[in-house]
């Protein structure tokens, strides 16, 4: 469908790329070469790669984004699969998106109340005689709340992927004597991979720069690159260093895109190229 759409339709997107992506990115890149006194320098990059602080932070960011993505995926895939077999599935899907329309800060405050020492969960456990547990400021709580926020962003693309799946293939596989598990791993999962991929991208990429939850729920026990950028832009007003970290984040994202991006051969479908 190369010439199916008039090129004029693409103009807004290209304009957007130029004005709101490339221009700001050049600005960030330019700023990353200035120190706090607005002198040209390479010191920001030197600081970044020489100080253990920033390297640890980079590792933290990637690691936590990874864990959050995996947890979200593990919760979302079965949910999307079950949704697919429900009556009124479109309605249920909308009901999964609905909670995302409530302000994030308010939901985080609610979690503080629920997870607190005096909170809902500990009161419930206390009912069975358990002593109050420290839930807040733990990795588990932080990852749970982060996954909570990302779940709808994962379920939606996976659900769309499953909807696309040809039911006959699943039935055929079962008729041929494959177990449910075999059908799932050999038929369902591979055929819904594209949905999973866009879900993973929609969750992993923003998770790299999480900052608010690390403080609100994590108590700043974990510091990610997002936190550091926030601090450099708003507290120290050292935009140079903040931009440097921003550049690193963008480069990290690009590397991930190229590693996970598909190669040309995958583009061949049905024996004919449709590019």
């Amino acid at each position, binding site marked *: 469908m190369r010439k199916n759409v008039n090129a004029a339709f693409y103009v807004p997107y290209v304009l957007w790329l130029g004005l709101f992506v490339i221009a700001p990115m050049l600005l960030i890149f330019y700023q990353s070469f200035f120190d706090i006194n607005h002198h040209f320098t390479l010191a920001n990059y030197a600081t970044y790669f020489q100080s253990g*602080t920033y390297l640890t932070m980079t590792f933290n960011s990637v690691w936590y984004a990874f864990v959050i993505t995996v947890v979200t995926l593990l919760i979302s895939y079965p949910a999307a699969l079950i949704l697919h077999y429900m009556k009124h599935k479109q309605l249920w899907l909308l009901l999964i998106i609905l909670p995302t329309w409530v302000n994030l800060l308010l939901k985080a*405050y609610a979690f503080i109340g629920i997870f607190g020492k005096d909170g809902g969960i500990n009161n419930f456990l206390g009912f069975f005689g358990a002593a109050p547990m420290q839930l807040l400021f733990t990795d588990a709580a932080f990852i749970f709340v982060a996954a909570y926020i990302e779940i709808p962003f994962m379920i939606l693309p996976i659900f769309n992927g499953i909807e696309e799946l040809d039911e006959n293939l699943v039935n055929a596989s079962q008729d041929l004597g494959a177990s449910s598990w075999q059908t799932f791993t050999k038929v369902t999962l591979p055929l819904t991979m594209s949905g999973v991929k866009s879900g993973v991208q929609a969750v992993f990429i923003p998770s790299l720069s999480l900052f608010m939850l690390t403080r609100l729920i994590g108590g700043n026990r974990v510091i990610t690159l997002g936190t550091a950028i926030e601090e450099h832009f708003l507290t120290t*007003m050292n935009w140079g260093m903040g931009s440097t970290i921003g550049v690193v984040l963008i480069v990290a994202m690009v590397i991930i895109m190229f590693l996970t991006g598909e190669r040309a051969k995958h583009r061949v479908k049905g024996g004919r190229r449709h590019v």
Partner: protein
Amino acid sequence: MKKLLSGIFAIIIVCMALAAGSARLAKSQGATGGNVLNFANWGDYIDPALIKKFEKETGYHVNQETFDSNEAMYTKIKQGGTHYDLTVPSEYMVEKMANDHLLVPLDKSKLTGMNNFGKDFMNQPFDPGNKYSIPYFWGTLGIIYNDKYIKPGAIQHWDDLWSKKYRGQIMLIDSARDIMGMSLVSLGKSMNTTDTPTLAAAKAKLDTLSPNVKAVVADEIKMYMGNNEAPLAVDWSGEAADMMYENSHLHYIVPTEGSNLWFDNFVIPKTAEHYKAIYAFLNFMSNPKNAAQNTDYVGYSTPNNAARKLLPKSTREDKSFYPTESTMKRLEVYKDLAPTVVGKYNDYFLEFKMFRH
């Protein structure tokens, strides 16, 4: 395709309805014409009833825009594009904005209520002679404790926080100047220290506090303390007042050896346009009755002594929020330090947060 088109159509109809509704509400609030005051304020930092009263008395309409950090507000004013007539930065930001020529000097001849302010709160080093600023509220940095877990009187000084008894029990406010400052005061140094060895010593001392630190959080510290999440916290008096209102087990003390004294101040940024409305508003807000009403709503300490006299006795003589003269003398106001020094405070604090156990 039909479905998509009708969807687009429906959205456009709804948008038009929303725009019409919003325009009508704007009109009903009188937001048209030039008789306005564009006021950039912290969120929920003024009694809305007073705004209504001011609009009724003077006929000016107040457009309120809110910000949540001094630096973000500074960036917007510096960058331009806004038309703020009045804003409320903290003291160090007043100094920074004045140095960067972002403020318009006050015309004292147009101000009527200046005599209402206590002299302790005027002529501060961040703005000598109050050339640019009028104090709005003030407060201190101190320790909040929960009497369910801590005996009253057990905590008197900063050094008490370092006691082994309080393992994993302290919440700190996420602010480099304040927490580094606390460590500096406990070493007997100034909160405006600029030399690296002293700062390094303060950082080293702070590291020894880390087993006692439960979390480093920001505004949500109020929610945590209100919910009895931790027995101890280091925070500002304004936040303390708010949590004490919610949880009667909480108490606030200012260590006698010294602490920070902070101010939020009215200033006129260079983007101002409506000078008549500005001075009408400043005079309205320094009126003792109005200031007292506002203090009652916001819950911070007022620098307006005439207004303070109108507050209930339990409030105006509360030692936690209006400390004794001798404590007041030991309080230190933050100076606007050089960017590299601010950077140093922040780097040390970041390291403290990162390598905590």
